[in-house]
């Protein structure tokens, strides 16, 4: 098998960095997330490839928080779209966990299927190579196995690396992966290493059947109870690897400006507020319900898989202690009222 020795990792990254921007899990001061290798500061920052995962997902690499779409110019009654900003520069997501990759696959469904291909997403996405870091040691908030993710054989990866102690076992899966592998072929060695043994999940989550049951629970009283402590703060949507909702806005200076899209959150009142002032989800509980139904039911109905990938970040980040695993449990246990 091919392996990349951990001692050679940084040199390999430097090499990759010449042809593409490489995003890796790292800790910078108090934050942890996927940052560009260019921003890595020796001695201060810490690579987190061997940690379970990082706090902020690699979502921004495929869907930047703010993305310019096109520039606008006004001349009297004339309006022009001067330039569009599809960005196809090569990027590598290195060491993403299977849950985060599944989230990207979910976004692929949204942005690339059902009649329309989003050109901004498509250009960016096609230029991204994904190196997955297979998971053998689930953390206490992990439940990807329950959400249709295979932690040791992740779908959607161009390359899969497996932590074998001194080195990563390197498995190329796609032509895109081949191209990347060939760039750093000089650092790969042929060696036989024992693969890690997959450890059992700490939480036992039974998602199966939840979507079907939820179909009957839209009007159930359970939502008021489940969402009562929710502040509708939106952290869950921002740290979520798969929450993709966006807003389109404009910025103008006099006669020039640009339109951009930016992340939005279904937790905000303004999200679904209509021009006339009406809002079908004006109440915080209604927004809470929509989010969990989207994650656990609606997405599954539309695209065949849940939009939650079991990464556990929202469980960790929620300032009110709302726990999606508990919500799944309570839904499963709830008695249906006719």
């Amino acid at each position: 098998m091919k392996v990349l020795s951990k001692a050679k990792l940084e040199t390999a990254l430097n090499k990759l960095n010449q042809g593409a921007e490489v995003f890796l899990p790292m800790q910078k001061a108090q934050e942890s997330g996927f940052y560009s290798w260019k921003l890595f500061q020796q001695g201060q920052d810490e690579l987190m490839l061997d940690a379970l995962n990082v706090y902020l997902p690699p979502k921004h690499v495929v869907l930047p928080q703010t993305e310019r779409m096109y520039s606008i110019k006004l001349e009297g009654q004339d309006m022009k779209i001067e330039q569009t900003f599809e960005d196809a520069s090569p990027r590598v997501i290195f060491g993403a966990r299977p849950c985060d990759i599944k989230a990207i696959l979910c976004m692929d469904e949204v942005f690339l299927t059902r009649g329309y291909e989003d050109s901004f997403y498509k250009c960016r996405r096609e230029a991204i190579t994904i190196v997955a870091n297979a998971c053998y040691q689930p953390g206490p908030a992990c439940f990807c196995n329950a959400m249709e993710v295979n932690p040791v054989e992740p779908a959607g990866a161009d390359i899969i690396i497996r932590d074998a102690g001194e080195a990563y076992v390197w498995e190329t899966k796609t032509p895109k992966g081949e191209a990347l592998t060939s760039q750093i072929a000089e650092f790969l060695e042929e060696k036989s290493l024992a693969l890690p043994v997959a450890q059992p999940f700490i939480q036992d989550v039974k998602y199966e059947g939840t979507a079907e049951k939820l179909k009957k629970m839209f009007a159930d009283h359970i939502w008021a109870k489940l969402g009562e402590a929710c502040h509708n703060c939106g952290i869950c949507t921002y740290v979520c690897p798969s929450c993709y909702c966006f807003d389109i806005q404009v910025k103008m200076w006099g006669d020039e400006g640009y339109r951009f899209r930016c992340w939005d959150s279904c937790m905000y009142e303004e999200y679904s507020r209509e021009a006339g002032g009406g809002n079908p989800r004006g109440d915080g509980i209604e927004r809470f319900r929509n989010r969990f139904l989207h994650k656990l039911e609606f997405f599954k109905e539309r695209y065949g898989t849940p939009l939650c990938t079991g990464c556990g970040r929202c469980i960790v980040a929620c300032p009110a202690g709302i726990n999606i695993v508990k919500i799944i449990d309570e839904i499963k246990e709830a008695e249906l009222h006719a």
Partner: protein
Amino acid sequence: MKDISNKIRDIAVKLFQEKKIDIFIGWEKGALEFQTRPLIARNEADAAKLVFDEYAIHNLATLLLKFRDGGEKIGIVAKGCDSRSMVRLLEDRQFQRERLYIIGVGCPGMKDPLQAMAKHTGLKKINADGNGVAAKCLDCVQPNPVIYDELLGSQQAPQQSGERFARVAALEKMSADERYRFFEETLSKCIRCYACRQVCPACNCRTCIFDEMKPQWVGRENSTTDNMMYHLVKASHMAGRCVECGECERACPVDIPLMLLNQKLIKDVNAFFGPYEAGMSYIEGAKPPLSSYAEKDPDDFI
């Protein structure tokens, strides 16, 4: 703390039995050991779940805003910071005193469930200070409830880690350029999730300026300009209102030192309009300095 938990439970049950309250707001145990979380109890059975432990860090006063338009009578537990927030809500006429039955608890300083979770799950390396007490509690000036109907536990001494405005002093010492660079760097991390606003008991405006679309005061773009605009406008709205509960800084997913800005304003409000500390005691009709107006107010800066 077991003892306090039991007492809170007994009081809540009794209040429900005597029909003195419709709702009781306290904490319950979450799925994980350090996941204590707010509980809105509506009956005796719910009340049996109430706990008070070292992770009961949330400011419960914010939850009162969910009920401000109703008539429900509410029992609620208050640590020092929760109680100061309640005073502020009463002063701002967001709530009526007679709707509340406040159970005060002296607070020994809490541990931060978010930090514990992050550390436990390995998603973030946390450099926790001291004995695991949450960062926000190390700046506490009033751990004891300032308004209550019943008081539990013993009075506590504040967990001050050092000079109160030490962080502010360091900021003031910077040159304007240095300060600009500091804020530019710090605020560039902001992901504009607005969690700091949502968990803030002082953010009780019915329509927030940041949600206004007509005109749109602050752009939605994640850029230095819009991020600064958001934080500076938010901070100035906190002047004279912030009770230093630190929930904003605790909730922030990217560790922006929000309390630094708030403390600067606390210090300035005290210096210019003081002596003043927000929400330290409830006197009916009292108004904080920036909520009152008199003709003789100096106005030469306008």
